[in-house]
């Protein structure tokens, strides 16, 4: 099956007509009308640090994760800097890292290579051991434009205001900026790296090409969503992602350019009112059970990652989760939803800064931009969750169904594995529950997740329940050889902390294309599943 090349075009493009942004708006408005509040006053619970000037002092000696991250992209990651997340107790089985060293460039940013190389000298600075592996996988870093004044807080772009109003500003700005920049990495040190750098150059030119198409698509007066989906399936360049995601999420960002500024302003205002309403009374006025759960989970969201340890980020996350929870009483807040906010928040934040979002201090971002990141994250999370709500309602029927169907599918595509799991008394529920509940975010890094969501969003609103099922099946079958050598305990422990720490885009894209193949074969063959 793997012989088939990755899909050239997403088959879902034909659904484009169903994404009528206006219709979606109408629906949203109906939903929110009860809480409509024209008042745009600052939210009651806002505890933001006023924007302050970003110090641009160059940072010299102390280690910067940003620098170290950049380095890992040009060279195979040093395994020692990727400790497994949960070092399992000694159980007699060993984690074997199968993935080849990530020698393919792991992002689409044409700016990356040169900068990364320039930063190679900080290798010795990598002090990453006590961070979770996710923390080591940086988001796509947009290197600063001119010289590189690195600060502790990160670098805020100077056109923040324009981007808040219209995300296209960021795209246009960057497109202009990147074109006349054929900057190359410094001369290779060895023949091997020469070869690699040649490969990089080839890939870069392909990416540049794709990038042009993207920019063209995003800049058009009325974005052709089918075209955007087709492009996005294969991955979105990091700097175009914030805008592309907002368009793909059922037109959170309206497709026609003229509507955007006003729509965004309205949605963000609406969110502010929702927050204000939800937190109108003081703490005692909150739904205690929901609030309690959110309060304990927020500090445990991406522990060890700088961005998520900042008060400003945590308060924003609390508001997003709480407002969503009280607006969806059938599910309320369910643990794991907190994880699902993080890709949105980081991606949307990345639009406003020129440094690694995960190392960024959101307190340094102008409040207006941070509010926009929060509101956009809220609405986009809502749209994502709309498609998988029955994962989180009583008895979690959505997950139960997905896990059952996954077991049936695996029985068909990998009978020996299925039989082995059976003889070892391993139930799919024992490991796949979490795969569904957190959309694999506990299994792969946030960086991997973000790449994966490019494709999910391109697939359409069902992807997070339907396509995801195929991704999970392909993901399990990937470890088939190993699993078939293990006993019950080995299998469960292995599946609980999979060796995906050094996964890059390549591994994710392989997984997505395998899932695509499975989806094409099985999705319209429902009667093959023993319908229960």
């Amino acid at each position, binding site marked *: 099956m793997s012989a088939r090349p990755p899909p050239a075009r997403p088959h879902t493009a034909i659904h484009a007509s169903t994404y009528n942004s206006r219709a979606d708006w109408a629906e949203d408005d109906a939903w929110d009308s009860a809480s409509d509040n024209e008042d745009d006053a600052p939210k009651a619970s806002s505890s933001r640090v006023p924007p302050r000037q970003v110090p641009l002092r160059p940072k010299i000696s102390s280690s910067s994760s940003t620098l170290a991250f950049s380095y890992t992209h040009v060279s195979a990651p040093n395994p020692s800097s990727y400790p497994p997340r*949960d*070092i*399992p*107790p*000694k*159980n*007699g*089985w060993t984690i074997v890292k199968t993935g080849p060293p990530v020698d393919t460039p792991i992002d689409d940013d044409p700016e990356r290579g040169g900068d990364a190389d320039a930063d190679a000298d900080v290798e010795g600075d990598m002090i990453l051991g*006590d961070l979770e592996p996710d923390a080591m996988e940086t988001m796509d870093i947009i290197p600063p434009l001119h010289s590189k004044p690195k600060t502790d807080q990160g670098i805020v772009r100077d056109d923040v205001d324009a981007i808040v109003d219209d995300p296209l500003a960021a795209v246009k700005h960057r497109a202009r900026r990147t074109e006349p920049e054929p900057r190359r990495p410094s001369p290779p040190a060895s023949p091997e790296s020469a070869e690699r750098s040649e490969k990089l150059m080839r890939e870069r030119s392909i990416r540049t090409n794709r990038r042009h198409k993207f920019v063209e698509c995003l800049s058009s007066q009325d974005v052709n969503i089918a075209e955007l989906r087709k492009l996005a399936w294969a991955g979105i360049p990091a700097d175009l992602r914030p805008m592309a995601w907002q368009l793909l999420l059922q037109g959170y960002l309206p497709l026609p350019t003229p509507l955007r500024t006003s729509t965004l302003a309205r949605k963000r205002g609406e969110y502010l009112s929702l927050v204000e309403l939800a937190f109108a009374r003081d703490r005692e006025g909150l739904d205690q*059970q929901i609030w309690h*759960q959110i309060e*304990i*989970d927020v*500090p*445990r*969201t991406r*522990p*060890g990652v700088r961005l998520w340890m900042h008060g400003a980020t945590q308060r924003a996350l609390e508001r997003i989760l709480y407002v969503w929870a009280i607006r969806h009483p059938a*599910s*309320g807040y*369910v*643990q*794991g939803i*907190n994880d699902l906010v993080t890709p949105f928040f980081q991606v949307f934040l990345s639009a406003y800064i020129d440094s690694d979002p995960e190392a960024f201090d959101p307190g340094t971002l102008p409040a207006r931009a941070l509010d926009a990141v929060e509101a956009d994250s809220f609405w986009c999370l809502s749209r994502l969750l709309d498609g998988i709500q029955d994962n*989180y309602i*009583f*008895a*979690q029927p959505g*997950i139960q169904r997905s896990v059952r169907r996954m077991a049936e599918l695996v029985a068909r595509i990998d009978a020996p594995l299925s039989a082995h799991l059976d003889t070892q008394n391993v139930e799919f*529920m*024992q490991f796949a*529950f*979490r795969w569904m*509940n*957190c959309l694999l975010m*506990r299994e792969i890094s946030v960086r991997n997740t973000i790449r994966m969501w490019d494709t999910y969003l391109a697939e359409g609103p069902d992807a997070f329940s339907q396509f995801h099922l195929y991704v999970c099946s392909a993901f399990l079958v990937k470890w088939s050889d190993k699993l078939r050598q*293990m*006993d019950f*305990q*080995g299998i*469960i*422990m292995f599946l*609980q902390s999979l060796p995906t720490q050094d996964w890059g885009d390549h591994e994710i894209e392989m997984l997505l294309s395998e899932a695509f193949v499975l989806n094409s074969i099985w999705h319209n063959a429902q009667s093959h599943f023993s319908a229960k």
Partner: protein
Amino acid sequence: MTEGSNYDYLFKVVLIGDSVLSRFTRNEFNLESKSTIGVEFATRSIDVDGKTVKAQIWDTAGQERYRAITSAYYRGAVGALLVYDIAKHATYVNVTRWLKELRDHADSNIVIMLVGNKSDLKHLRAVPTDEAKSFSTENGLSFIETSALDASNVEGAFQTILTDIYRIVSSKSLEQSNNPIDAPGPSISVGPSVDNNAAQGSKCC
């Protein structure tokens, strides 16, 4: 796997309640570790009387929404660690509800240990030791207080419950083999934790 087959007794134990012990089962002792989703699996082995006692521990998520999923794991468990936070009275109040869950879904002769855990150095005690102790006696539970911040202490809780279970199971199998004389220490068995038909059903797998 090699170690997997190297034991004399294998017990299934569930971890329920305000389950901050998850970081113990995950070997994580940093203050903030990710929440448990559904269930997580861990193992521990201890030696009692020269026997290797191995536990398969299912750490269940605390949130109500996961009940439907997690209660399935109670079946076949010979032990349960019911955890509350001594600094948060609400978690102690919940213990009654958890007990009911166990009575409803778990085997009737399951050994239950109430674990008063201090998850956080900042907060003061809200549940007096005596109160929890007498509650345990009334309900036939063993009782221990631990600090999840202190690995050895939590390890101690596991040691204690596994030893308890071992005593009960081994004394039971001795009873069944009608040879009570050689019992290595049946008198130590934490008696009242089995509140009914204690004689039947050796659950060691």
